[in-house]
C-alpha cells in the first residue's frame, strides 16, 4: 500500500485537538484568503476552462490549503497534519496507468494529461441510486449491454428479500454481497465477465459491506471500492477502516470527494480549491488509485450547473498540468430517464469532462435519488465524449457548445422533470429502450449534431 496508513492513524489519534466548528470556519477563512492571493475567478461564460495559468495557481493554492488545514478526524477531533514532502511524494507515486478488470475485458485507466492521444475511460451505471430489488438486475444489465461503457458502477440495494437494510446492520453485509452477485450476473449475461466493477459495495454506508465482499466471488482485486473524504477535508474511523480493508486485499480504491459549492469552502472558487486539496489528501492518507469528483451545488445539487461544470473543469486541468491523477468526475443530472433534458445535461457534462482531462464516473439521473435511469443515457454520454475527442474540439468551441446546451436544460433546476422509472423507458424482458425513449434520444442527438458535434455513428 502506498499510504503510510499506520502513521496517519496515529496522527488521527494524537494530532492537534480542534473543535469541528472552528475547523469549518478556519477553512472558510483560509479558502477566502487563498482564492484572493492566487487570483482564482469563476467566470460563468467560461465553463470549460482553458486558462492554464489559473489552473496552475489552483494547484499551488491547494497544496497550501493542505498544509494550512490538514485533514480533520471527526471521531477524535484531531488534525492529521502534513509536510510538503509527504504530499509531493504521494502525488509522485500515484499510479499513472492501471489495468482494470480481467481477461479480454480489461481496460487501461490512465492519469490523463492533455494531448497525450488518449480519450477518457467511460464508466456506466447509476452510482449509489437506491434500486428496487426486483429491478436491480435488469437495470444493471442495461448498462452491461452497452459496449461503449468501459467499466460499470452499481446502484444500491436498500432492501433484501423485502426487508429494509439498516446502516451498520447485518443486512448491509447481505445487501453488498447480493449487489455483487447481480453485478457479476449482469456482466456474464452480456458476455463480458471480466469487466471492472467500479466502487463495488455501494449498498453499504459503513465498512461492513466492503469487508464482506473482499472475496473473488464478489469483489475481485481487479475491481475497486470507494473511500469517501467527508466534506470538507475530513475523515473518520469508518473511512479509515475502509482504507485498512484494502491493506491485505489489494483491490483498487477510489476516493469520493463532494465539495459543497456555497458551503465551508465558499463559492465555486473555494469549492474547486477544496476539491483539489481533498484529491491530494486522499492520495496521501488513503493511498487511493483513482478519484471520484462530485462538486455539489448547494441549492440544485446537480453537476450540470455552471458552477459544478467549472469546478470539475478547472480541477481536471490543474492536475493534468501539474500532477496527473486518474480522476473520474460524477455526471449528475437534475432530470431523469425519458426526458430531453437529461440528454442535454449529459452532453454538457460529457464535453466538459472530456475536455478537462477527466474520466467519468457515470450518470446520476435525478441526482441519484430515483431509479429513473437506464443504459441509454450512459451510451449517449460515451458517444458524446467520443465525438468531442475525435473532432479535436478546441476549448473555445467546447465552451460555446456547452453554453448552448446549458440553455436547453437550465429551466429544469427550479422545476425538475424527474422522468420515468426504468420499466417505463425499457422493455424489462429484452432490456432494450422502448420506442419513445429511443425516439427522444435520436431527436436530441440530431439536434446536438446540428449544433456542430460530429457523432461517429
Amino acid at each position: 500500500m502506498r499510504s503510510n496508513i499506520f502513521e496517519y492513524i496515529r496522527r488521527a489519534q494524537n494530532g492537534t485537538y480542534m473543535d469541528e466548528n472552528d475547523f469549518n470556519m478556519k477553512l472558510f477563512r483560509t479558502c477566502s484568503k487563498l482564492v484572493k492571493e492566487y487570483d482564482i475567478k469563476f467566470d460563468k461564460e467560461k465553463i470549460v476552462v482553458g486558462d492554464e495559468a489559473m489552473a496552475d495557481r489552483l494547484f499551488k493554492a491547494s497544496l497550501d490549503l493542505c498544509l494550512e488545514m490538514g485533514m480533520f478526524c471527526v471521531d477524535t477531533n484531531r488534525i492529521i497534519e502534513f509536510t510538503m514532502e509527504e504530499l509531493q511524494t504521494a502525488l509522485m507515486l500515484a499510479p499513472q496507468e492501471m489495468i482494470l478488470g480481467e481477461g479480454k475485458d480489461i481496460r487501461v485507466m490512465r492519469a490523463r494529461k492533455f494531448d497525450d492521444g488518449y480519450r477518457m475511460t467511460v464508466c456506466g451505471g447509476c452510482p449509489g441510486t437506491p434500486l428496487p430489488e426486483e429491478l436491480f438486475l435488469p437495470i444493471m444489465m442495461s448498462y452491461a449491454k452497452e459496449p461503449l461503457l468501459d467499466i460499470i458502477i452499481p446502484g444500491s440495494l436498500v432492501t433484501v428479500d423485502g426487508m429494509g437494510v439498516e446502516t451498520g446492520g447485518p443486512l448491509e453485509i447481505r445487501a453488498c454481497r447480493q449487489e455483487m452477485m447481480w453485478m457479476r450476473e449482469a456482466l456474464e449475461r452480456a458476455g463480458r465477465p471480466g469487466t471492472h466493477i467500479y466502487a463495488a459495495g455501494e449498498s453499504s454506508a459503513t465498512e461492513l459491506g466492503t469487508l464482506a465482499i473482499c472475496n473473488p466471488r464478489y469483489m475481485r482485486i481487479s475491481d475497486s471500492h470507494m473511500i469517501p473524504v467527508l466534506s470538507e477535508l475530513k475523515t473518520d474511523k469508518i473511512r479509515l477502516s475502509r482504507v485498512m480493508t484494502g491493506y491485505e486485499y489489494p483491490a483498487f480504491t477510489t476516493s469520493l470527494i463532494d465539495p459543497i459549492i456555497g458551503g465551508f469552502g465558499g463559492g465555486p472558487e473555494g469549492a474547486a480549491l477544496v476539491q483539489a486539496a481533498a484529491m491530494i489528501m486522499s492520495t496521501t492518507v488513503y493511498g487511493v488509485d483513482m478519484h471520484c469528483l462530485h462538486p455539489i451545488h448547494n441549492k440544485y445539487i446537480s453537476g450540470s450547473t455552471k458552477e459544478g461544470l467549472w469546478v470539475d473543469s478547472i480541477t481536471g486541468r490543474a492536475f493534468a498540468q501539474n500532477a496527473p491523477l486518474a480522476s473520474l468526475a460524477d455526471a449528475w443530472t437534475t432530470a431523469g430517464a425519458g426526458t430531453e433534458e437529461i440528454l442535454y445535461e449529459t452532453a454538457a457534462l460529457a464535453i466538459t469532462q472530456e475536455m478537462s482531462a477527466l474520466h467519468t464516473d457515470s450518470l446520476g439521473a435525478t441526482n441519484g435519488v430515483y431509479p429513473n435511469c437506464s443504459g441509454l443515457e450512459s451510451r449517449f454520454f460515451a458517444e458524446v465524449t467520443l465525438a468531442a475527442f475525435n473532432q479535436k474540439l478546441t476549448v473555445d468551441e467546447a465552451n460555446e457548445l456547452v453554453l448552448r446546451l446549458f440553455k436547453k436544460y437550465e429551466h429544469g433546476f427550479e422545476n425538475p422533470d424527474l422522468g420515468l422509472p426504468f420499466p417505463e423507458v425499457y422493455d424489462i424482458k429484452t432490456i432494450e429502450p422502448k420506442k419513445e425513449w429511443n425516439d427522444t434520444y435520436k431527436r436530441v442527438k440530431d439536434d446536438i449534431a446540428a449544433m456542430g458535434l460530429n457523432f461517429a455513428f
Partner: protein
Amino acid sequence: MVDKDILQHICTAIETPDPDETVKAVEKAVDFGVAPLEIVGALTDGITTLGDKFERMECFLPELILGADAMDVSMKLLKPKMEELNLETGPAGTVVISNIQGDIHDIGRDIVVTMLRVAGYQVEDMGHDVKPNLMIDKALECDADIIAVSTLLTTSLPFAREVLRLLDARGLSGKFKVVMGGGAVTPEYCEEIGAGYGDNAAAAVKLVKELIDGGDSK
C-alpha cells in the same frame, strides 16, 4: 437622526456579516439609549437580508453562520436591558436536531440549523450519526418543542421511524412534535409515520414556526 444612523450601522454590520462590528454597534446603541426593541428590529432586518442573500446564493453557509453568531451575542448583550423593561427575551422555541444513526450527510442539517437560529429558535444540534433514544433524552433535558431528524440515507430511515416508536414506548407520544427532512425522506413516508415534512431549510423554518405558533406543540 442619530438613532437612525446607529440602527443602520447595526443592520449593515450583521448583514456584512461582521460579529465584532455588530457587537460594537449594539453597545453604542445601548449607550445612546436607543430602545432595545428598535435594536432587535435592526438586527432582525439585517439577518433577514443575509438569509435572503443566502437563498439567492449571493452569500455562503459560513457567512450565514457568522450572522447567526452575531445575532446570538447581540441578544445576550441586550438581555439585561430587555428584562429591566419586562420584555420577552427567550427564544421562539427549542428544537433538538441531528442526522439520525448511520447518516453523516451534515451539510443540509448545518443549513437547517443556521436558518432556524436566524429565525430566533434555540437549536440543540446533536451532530450526526445519533441514536434515536439519545435525541429523546436531549429533548427531555432541554424541554424542547420539536425533534427534527435529518437523513439522506434510505438505510437510516428505520432509525428515523424509531424516534416515533420510542416516544410511544416511553409514554411520551405527543410531548414533542417530530419533523423530518433530507433526501431519503418523502412527504408520503412522513405522513405514514406521523411526522412533519420539510423539503428545504426555508420549509423547515416554516414548519417549525407553524407547529410552535400553532399552539398545540406541547
